[in-house]
């Protein structure tokens, strides 16, 4: 055992790292960026959710006119996790929840004050989307906190007025508008993971296989043949599209039949979403492979391309809960729109009409990437 030989090997590795600026940058910069994001996401510093409120309460009289609905509204306004949006009717609020304009809505019934003072149980209605458990929970918690506070205040006032010692509880009737209320965790996360898998493997395989085409020199042969750039790009697309769709079908089949995942909407529409995503990703892979010399360098693109999307595209943490600047960033990521569309179809049972704008954005991404991929291919020719 010669320490000098060991030192020579260690020294050589250091020299190689020093030469490889890109690796060096990735080793130090990427973890810092990713850790900051993860730190932010795991902290409970959430952006307030927009929650609708409909006050149908007619009010009543105790020492004077009183409207518990208005008290509730005031308490909700003071609640930190919520930005309150008043709506005139339950229908208007329901529409807004369905469209995703607001995260949820609370409806105070007409007889809220009356029943409470009569010692009867009043029932509030809570409208939730039912697509993102994290968001539904956040709304549920905020409403629960406010109601607990309010009933305490109420109990004091009723007691002071010489009424019953304890105020009757207010119950909340919860309705999920877009999905059935008894979904399991896999039902929520399944669609997102199918999208993320399709993105990840397509990106990795397309870029590595294109890089290999360059390193073995077969790209020279392709370029010297009468095949046009468009033919090469389309050939690649078709090959990887078929592959990615079969992969998605296998994951989907496994999730549905073995893991008992529920799919509310059409699988064909879900596959269409995946297909459009994959078209963009194949070309992204082709384009980025031109900036890599080795397969190691292609792998290094993953933390740059894939990790931020996994963290910010709504795979686990809903985009709506992110800081506004991160939300803007998330809108740029194709994965954000693919996952939103997949969830709409597979959890909420939406159809093509419900995901039209997402598909349009994914289509734009795909078209842009085809142009970039073909341009990268022409760099191959002199």
């Amino acid at each position: 055992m010669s320490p000098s030989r060991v030192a020579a090997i260690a020294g050589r590795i250091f020299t190689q790292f020093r030469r490889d600026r890109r690796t060096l940058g990735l080793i130090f910069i990427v973890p810092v960026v990713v850790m900051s994001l993860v730190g932010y996401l795991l902290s409970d510093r959430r952006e307030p959710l927009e929650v609708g409120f409909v006050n149908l309460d007619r009010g009543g009289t105790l020492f004077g006119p009183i409207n518990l609905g208005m008290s509730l509204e005031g308490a909700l306004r003071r609640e930190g996790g919520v930005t309150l949006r008043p709506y005139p009717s339950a229908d208007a609020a329901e529409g807004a929840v369905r469209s995703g304009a607001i995260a949820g809505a609370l409806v105070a019934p007409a007889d809220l004050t009356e029943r409470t003072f009569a010692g009867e149980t009043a029932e509030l209605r809570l409208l939730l989307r039912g697509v993102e458990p994290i968001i539904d929970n956040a709304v549920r918690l905020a409403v629960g906190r406010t109601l607990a506070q309010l009933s305490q205040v109420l109990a004091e006032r009723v007691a002071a007025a010489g009424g019953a010692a304890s105020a009757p509880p207010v119950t909340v009737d919860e309705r999920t508008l877009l999905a059935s209320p008894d979904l399991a965790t896999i039902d929520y996360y399944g669609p997102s993971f199918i999208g993320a898998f399709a993105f990840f493997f397509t990106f990795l395989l397309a870029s590595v296989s294109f890089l290999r085409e360059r390193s073995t020199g077969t790209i020279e042969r392709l370029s010297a043949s009468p095949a046009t750039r468009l033919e090469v790009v389309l050939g690649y697309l078709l090959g990887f599209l078929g592959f990615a769709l079969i992969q998605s079908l296998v994951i989907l089949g496994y999730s549905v039949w073995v893991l008992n995942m529920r799919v509310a909407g059409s699988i064909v529409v879900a596959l269409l979403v995946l297909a459009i995503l994959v078209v963009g990703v194949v070309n992204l892979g082709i384009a980025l492979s031109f900036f890599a010399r080795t397969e190691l360098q292609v792998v290094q693109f993953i933390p740059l391309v894939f990790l931020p999307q996994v963290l910010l595209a709504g795979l686990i943490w809903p985009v709506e809960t992110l800081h506004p600047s991160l939300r803007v960033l998330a809108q740029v990521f194709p994965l954000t729109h693919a996952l939103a569309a997949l969830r709409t179809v597979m959890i909420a049972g939406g159809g093509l009409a419900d995901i039209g704008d997402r598909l349009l954005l994914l289509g734009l991404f795909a078209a842009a990437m085809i142009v970039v991929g073909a341009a990268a291919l022409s760099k191959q020719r002199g």
Partner: protein
Amino acid sequence: MSRTAGATGGAPVSDAVSASGLVRTFGRIRALDGLDLSVRKGEILGLLGPNGSGKSTLIRVIVGLLRPTAGAVTVLARRMPDRGTSARIGYMTQTAALYEDLTPRENLTFFGRLYGLTRREARRRAAELIERVALMERADAPVHELSGGMRQRTNLACALIHRPDLLLLDEPTAGIDPPNRRSLWEYFHDLNRGGTTLLVSTYIMDEVERCHRVAMIERGRIIAAGSPEELRRAAGAATMEEAFLAFSAPAVRGEAPAST
């Protein structure tokens, strides 16, 4: 002092390749520096030069992979790059440019279809070429299992799949043992007898003895051209190696002050 192929004669009409004043730069490097060359129809022209003399760049310009920075190249009466003409050129790269996890037969069929053959034609042609380059036993084994000689024979077969009129071979025998090298040259002569024009680049001096004519390239220019015998005689040398050194010495000395 330097004799270009053009100066040696031959009407341009019968030239398979004719290049004039070719310049190709890569950043500050001038890989081709005002190069003139003609390859006559039906001949085997050897392109002889050391590593880095511009052989590969020249071949890549001829096949249409690179655009010349200045000058022009005409192949089979068409100015390159030209996609229609690409289909009449066979190009064999220095390293075996093959799909490693496909078999020779699959590689051949694939390239055949890229050159516009139907699936059936490509298969028939692949079978024919596998026999021709004696790959019968290994035709259905993945390329990564093949020896260097077999790979290079597969590589050659891929360049022949569409029956090209002009075959450009970039150091086809580099790293190939003498028996395999000999059999490659037998294929080249065989093809040539069938009417194919060949341009073969090499840095191996005695290999060009097998060519009809030789163009010597150095620093991106043709420094001499002619039949092997003519070149030896003109240089007063007994071997090709001595002849090359004789032609290259003044060229190198002449260039020395110009290069920084």
